[in-house]
């Protein structure tokens, strides 16, 4: 892939809104690390990736000490990995699934594990966790003792047990 052409286009479009770093591993594989100052700019990056026939491999999220969340998208453009980092302070970010469908599961997983909402995502269903488990479970540390008593914030399970008891 012609990475210099891709980077040039993004620099021209985003200007000071992004910082770009390039690295090469010991096997000679090139990767790009990009930080976006404004989270809305992810749409511009996604459109560029689409025009270069790239795909979203996955996205990583983690909670920072100040309560904000960092989201890193990992894209592939013909063998080159592009990591794009955004930060969100208000538990929401703009979904790129309508532009790059391969980001579908990654964004849904961020929603249920961290409680960060991908605005405009076409699928609102849960991915892995049951509806009785509150969104954002990876934001919390749950000790084993608490886990054994149940982490559910709803009483759906207890109601089912109660129903069975009442029905004999």
């Amino acid at each position: 892939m012609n990475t210099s052409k891709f980077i040039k286009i993004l620099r021209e479009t985003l200007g000071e809104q992004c910082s770009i770093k390039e690295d090469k591993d010991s096997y000679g594989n090139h990767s790009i690390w990009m930080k976006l100052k404004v989270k809305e700019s992810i749409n511009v990056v996604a459109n560029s990736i689409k025009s270069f026939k790239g795909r979203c491999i996955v996205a990583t999220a983690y909670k920072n000490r100040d309560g904000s969340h960092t989201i890193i998208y990992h894209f592939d453009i013909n063998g080159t990995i592009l990591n794009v980092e955004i930060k969100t302070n208000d538990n929401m970010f703009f979904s790129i699934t309508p532009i790059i469908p391969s980001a579908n599961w990654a964004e849904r997983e961020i929603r249920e594990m961290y409680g960060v909402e991908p605005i405009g995502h076409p699928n609102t269903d849960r991915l892995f966790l049951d509806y009785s488990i509150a969104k954002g479970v990876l934001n919390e540390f749950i000790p084993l003792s608490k886990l054994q008593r149940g982490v559910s914030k709803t009483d759906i399970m207890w109601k089912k047990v109660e129903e069975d008891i009442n029905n004999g």
Partner: protein
Amino acid sequence: MGKTIKIGPFHPELEESVYFKLVADKNSIVQEVEIVNGFIHRGMESLVTNRNFMQNLILTERVCSLCSNNHPFTFVMAVEKIANIKVPSRAEALRVVADEIKRAASNLFNLAMLSHLTHSYELMKDTLETREYLQDLKETIWGNRMDMSVNLFTGVKYDLDAKKVVHILEKLNLAIPKIKELQKRFENDEIIKQRCVGVGILPTEKALEIGVTGPVARGSGINNDVRVKAPYSLYALRPELQPRTKPRNGCDVLSRAMARFDDIIEAVRIIKDLLSDLPRGKTYLEKRPHIPEGEAVVRTEAPRGELIYYLKTDGSQKPIRMRWKVPTYTNWEALKVMILGDKVENVTIILNSIDPCISCTER
């Protein structure tokens, strides 16, 4: 009004727990499909941030049994990238030998499951018997039939002497004619053709849009094999070892099965080439290297496709964040394309054709 059919979460034709809710018309053609996941979710990504790197090496071996070599392989590569460690060539070669043995055995298992689903039990028996050559090898060389526990930070835990090399080559020479014969039988078996040709179609443009990888992509005419597109380990240092497989264009269940056969044959070729010229030297550098602050993204080609690890460290003994994505994670979405418009009776065969690894996907 269509007929609602539920398959799973526990079913004799499902390898792992998945739940399909299908709506079919009067001709049993699937009109709607809903797939419910999450039965094997264990919160492993949270667990790894509460364990040190050595403990996580053991944990990654246990994400799932069929991929129990790829996870630690990719994880150690991520750690080595952050610590700027260059692994000795002999260790790289030994990693690749173990990985390719695992790839061949994993793909043969999936093909055996395909013959099971088509009720071709003679073929299933022969496929599993051929796989036994590789299982025996794993047991003899690494001491275990599934978890080979090969990887170590900066190298590997095992070594091969001349006697073991001869033993591996002897076993592979016995397996090769059987694998080639099986390939012909799968390609020409009437029942397999009847059940697999034109079934579970994934058009190339849809495969590109969803971002599928591995034999699923190769069955739809796309070759995004990481060993070729972004070579790592010995595939980068010795390009002649890179697989020479060509994608298949049928876009159906049989094409994906044949792509797996291509992978198996290439895996055996890679092991034989490597063992004929095994680099000399150390098998590891140090057992407990210091892991500084940093972040890395590393990927490898697992039997089912691209496996990627993201690792962020702060110089302490535990990772800040560790994230991995397995091939089934993206290949799963393709199921909806493959199943819609196909017959209800083909659903489990189509599911098997992506070789789903639910334990890995849900973590």
